[in-house]
């Protein structure tokens, strides 16, 4: 019983503690084990469903379509700008500053988005803004050929 090398003078108090421990165990109701078993068998059998996060496919698809449209619009805008009213590529007065202002305006508008709008609305607005940009370029501002310009 005594694997702890308890000094001789302390063995009686140690024996008293053992008696106390047995008394505490005996104080448990006779049905303790049964009650624990009944209360916990469901926990033993239960397998928690893994938490799954599903991304709404509809939203993703719409975003892809909108991004594609925006890209096409951007390409169209650049092409139209390149084939301006005088029919020549790069014709007309290059207004890089004007183009930069447009882009800055677009970015500023987007940065004010407080994120509460659904993604589709954001894509729609970017698409419309891109169209407007293309139209404004078509009406007068040309893109210098040979210079790097990026929207």
């Amino acid at each position, binding site marked *: 019983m005594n694997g702890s090398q308890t000094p001789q003078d302390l063995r*009686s108090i140690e024996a008293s503690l053992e008696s106390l*421990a047995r008394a505490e165990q005996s104080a448990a109701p006779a049905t*303790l084990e049964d009650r*624990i078993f009944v209360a916990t068998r469901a926990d*033993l059998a239960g397998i928690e469903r893994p938490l799954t996060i599903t991304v709404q496919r509809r939203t993703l698809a719409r975003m892809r379509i909108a991004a594609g449209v925006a890209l096409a619009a951007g390409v169209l805008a650049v092409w139209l700008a390149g084939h301006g009213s005088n029919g020549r590529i790069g014709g007309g007065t290059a207004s890089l500053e004007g183009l930069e202002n447009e882009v800055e305006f677009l970015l500023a508008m987007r940065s004010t988005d407080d994120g509460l709008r659904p993604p589709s609305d954001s894509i729609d607005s970017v698409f419309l803004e891109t169209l407007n940009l293309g139209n404004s370029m078509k009406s007068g501002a040309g893109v210098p050929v040979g210079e790097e310009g990026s929207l």
Partner: protein
Amino acid sequence: MPQSDSEAEVAGLLSAASRGDEAAWREVISRYGRRVFALAKSRCQRTDIAEEVTQSVFATVATKLGQGGYTEQGRFESWLFRVAMNRIRDEMRRLKRHAEPMDPTTLGVLADPGSVEESKGGSDAALNRLRAAMAELPEADREVVELRHHGGMSFKQMSELLHEPLGTLLARHHRALRKLKQLMGDFGGDQ
């Protein structure tokens, strides 16, 4: 005193229980249920709360087993009693916050352990004096005594549980025994 269930035997039971073997789970409860109960009862001095705590502890264990999350290889007892100690501490904090009335017998014993009536039998009186003496121990010493005797843990298991060197726990245990012996003498009785 510590019950040394072989680790392999316990591991087998836990493995079976985690696969839904109810008989194995019953055996686990049978081996450890009352030890956890005794630990809780020593702290809170109330049978109903001790049972609640015990049930809560085994619910945690069952959930872990059921989910396949138990990974304490060969250290089930240390883990089990760690869960139990945490649950008991939570419960003691809750009791302090709500200041529930203490059992009058315990109150009387703590106030004047020497005046406990002998009508319930000398052994009960002696046990009540010992309970009162336990309440006087410093927290760390009381913890070691309870884990050792009520929980039936070995010093090695306690060392794993408390992350303390074995020698420190041995010294603490002996110091606690001396203090209890002195207190029991002060309370007018000794075994």
